[in-house]
């Protein structure tokens, strides 16, 4: 353990606190991700190194060396102030790291800066009606016609497709190759002719994801990441990043602080919820889990920087992180009793109704990005080297 809690870090914490003190009022609170307020805040955070911190300057980031403790301090201070630590979303959390790893220089130049600034919004076109957990069986096709790919097929559950500028999309380009080797990874604009989007309402009653149909969609040949037929490998690199971001322990910390605050104000029979020993114990239990996941996160980060092996620690983050978050949101609902049911325009709504919506949303994330069951398959088969399922050949 080499965690120098030196004066440099004390000073850094003060600096972050000072920043928050001065700029807290500019922070967005639930505004549209396209609004000026959100975009200005994002730029301000990048300029100060509080988001996109380690993205190189030449691609519009802050360009700092990775520093686990500074990352932790930023997360803690933003969580304490309950202020947004900038934009997330599939472009920032998945595509950017993948382009940094596998993109051409041209692609990096073109896409990273506008994406991290929130100007270019992405959606992820992976899942299809017949290809969910078994993603590699996807059938949306792309055939080369001169200098263009021609894409045909259907995607489903495409989050933010209706507001996205661009899509990163898995398509089958080599129909005769084995299923994992016939896929390519394309990038294209969502206003390309031939794309039709139909909204799907989810259980939170928001229409955040969609069915996306492609009919003869023309895509310039060079808008491919990796080689032809290597899309599965590219996607897996991305899925790793997605899984890292889905159960973010720092976001859990922010919610834990909000829950503690809630318990100090909400009452039952005139008694504050925090004064109820049963509820307090449940809060502490969740706090212990959040703490463990934050240390796990620091370990994974440190291992990456020091070229140490922490495969299992990384493999478990999506499973543990999303389940934890779902439990945390559910705890708030539980202890509020009937008030926990309030939704939408209910005058007794607490924290903007976020407890119910996040509780449901995180059930969605338990399913999305590889279900908890699929995560357990991966952990047991790849992490613990247990025997694979016997293969079933398709009949007929």
């Amino acid at each position, binding site marked *: *353990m080499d965690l120098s809690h030196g004066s440099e870090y004390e000073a850094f914490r003060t600096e972050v606190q000072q920043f928050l003190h001065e700029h807290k009022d500019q922070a967005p609170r639930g505004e549209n991700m396209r609004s000026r307020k959100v975009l200005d805040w994002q730029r301000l955070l990048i300029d100060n190194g509080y988001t996109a911190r380690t993205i190189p300057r030449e691609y519009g980031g802050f360009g700092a060396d990775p520093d686990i403790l500074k990352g932790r301090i930023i997360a803690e201070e933003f969580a304490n102030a309950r202020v947004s630590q900038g934009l997330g979303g599939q472009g920032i959390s998945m595509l950017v790291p993948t382009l940094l790893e596998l993109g051409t220089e041209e692609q990096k130049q073109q896409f990273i800066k506008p994406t991290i600034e929130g100007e270019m919004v992405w959606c992820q076109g992976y899942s299809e009606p017949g290809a969910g957990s078994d993603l590699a069986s996807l059938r949306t096709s792309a055939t080369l016609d001169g200098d263009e790919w021609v894409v045909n097929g259907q995607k489903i559950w495409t989050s933010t497709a209706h507001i996205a500028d661009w899509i990163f999309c898995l398509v089958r380009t080599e129909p005769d190759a084995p299923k994992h080797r016939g896929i390519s990874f394309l990038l294209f604009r969502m206003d390309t002719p031939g794309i039709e989007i139909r909204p799907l309402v989810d259980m939170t009653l928001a229409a955040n994801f969609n069915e996306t149909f492609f009919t003869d969609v023309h895509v310039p040949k060079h808008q491919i990441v990796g080689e032809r037929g290597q899309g599965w490998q590219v996607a897996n690199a991305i899925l790793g990043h997605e899984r890292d971001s889905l159960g973010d322990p720092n976001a859990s910390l922010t919610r834990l602080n909000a829950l503690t605050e809630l318990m100090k104000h909400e009452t039952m029979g005139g008694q504050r919820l*925090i004064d109820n020993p049963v509820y307090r114990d449940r809060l502490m239990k969740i706090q212990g889990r959040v703490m463990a996941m934050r240390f796990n996160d620091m370990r994974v980060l440190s291992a990456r920087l020091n070229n*140490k092996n922490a495969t299992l620690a990384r493999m478990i983050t999506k499973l543990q992180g999303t389940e934890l978050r779902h439990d945390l949101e559910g705890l708030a609902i539980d202890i509020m009793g009937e008030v926990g049911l309030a939704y939408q325009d209910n005058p007794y709504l607490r924290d903007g109704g976020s407890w119910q919506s996040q509780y449901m949303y995180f059930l969605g994330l338990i399913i999305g990005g590889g279900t908890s069951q699929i995560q357990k398959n991966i952990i047991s*088969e790849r992490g613990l080297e*247990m*025997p694979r399922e016997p293969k079933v050949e398709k009949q007929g």
Partner: protein
Amino acid sequence: MEFGLSEEQTLLADSVHRFLEEQVPLERVRGIATGEETDGSQSVWQELADLGIPALLIPEEQGGVGLSQLDAAVVAEMFGYHTTPAPFIGTAVMAPIALKAAGDDTTLAAIAKGETTVGVAIGEAVASRLDAGVTSNGERLTGKCVFIINYGSDRYLVADDTGALFMVASDADGLTHRPLTTVDRTRPSGELVFDDTPAQLLSSDAATFEAVLDAGRVMLAADTLGAAQNMIDQAVAYAKEREQFNRPIGSFQAVKHMCAEMAASLEPCRPMVWYAAHALDEIPEEARLTACHTKAHLAEVGTFIAKTSTEVHGGMGFTDLVGLHYWFKRIGFNRQMLGVPELVREEAARLQGLVV
């Protein structure tokens, strides 16, 4: 900057692991637990003294190695992994903290050489059960301690009802004691009864008591980390070998998922124990809270793994034959001692000003 074990710590873990694997395998643990090898845990301790284990935390000036609590946690983890019968937590971790505070160099030197062992009787100052408890006049103790740690040691670290810490020789006047059988036979427990018993006051500073307690809790958690890891290893190995329906049971998803859940819940416990142990020495402002949460969280995860690993083994898990129950009980012991989860979590809440 690095969040993780150093090269030296990994080597330390490996060498303790290899030693225990060869010298104190399950058959020997079994012999000691069932009383076939009398004085077994004392002789194991002697062997460990040759490796320098009792001297880990003792300063070099007193003949020790002068290592950190994180090093001790790494060793505790290995002891849990092998269900090692040895008076480690009391002698090598908790007592030295109090002795250092008192400046008792002689006893520290004796511990470092492996010449004396120390049991710990502070449970009553944490939460008194059976109406037990000890009062003192600063020189003499009266009262009773139950379910002490490392019973059968040469001396005992005792807390009175104010949290002041004393050292008492096991043959002191007015001290009677008897063993108390618990489910965990790898670490003897017992009862001490004091009747105006002469005692050496080590510290009446609350901070010393807390430091001793926090370290004890983190070491119990580290012990559980090791024990639970072993139970996962055994479950995974068994699931790959055992066949039913013409397949290894490990190819059944139900079994795989039990194993994945165990691994997924234990993995974050590892950096949690590291951090908690590191904080004891280096980050005092976080040490108390992290110790409480680590103790409670490891107890919960440990209990889940103890149950699940046993289930993966089917009927074999329930038998004495494979001895899986030694780990099961070890984890149970660590959970109950120095505060069950509900108790330490309440302490965590109090530390954050959440209890009025």
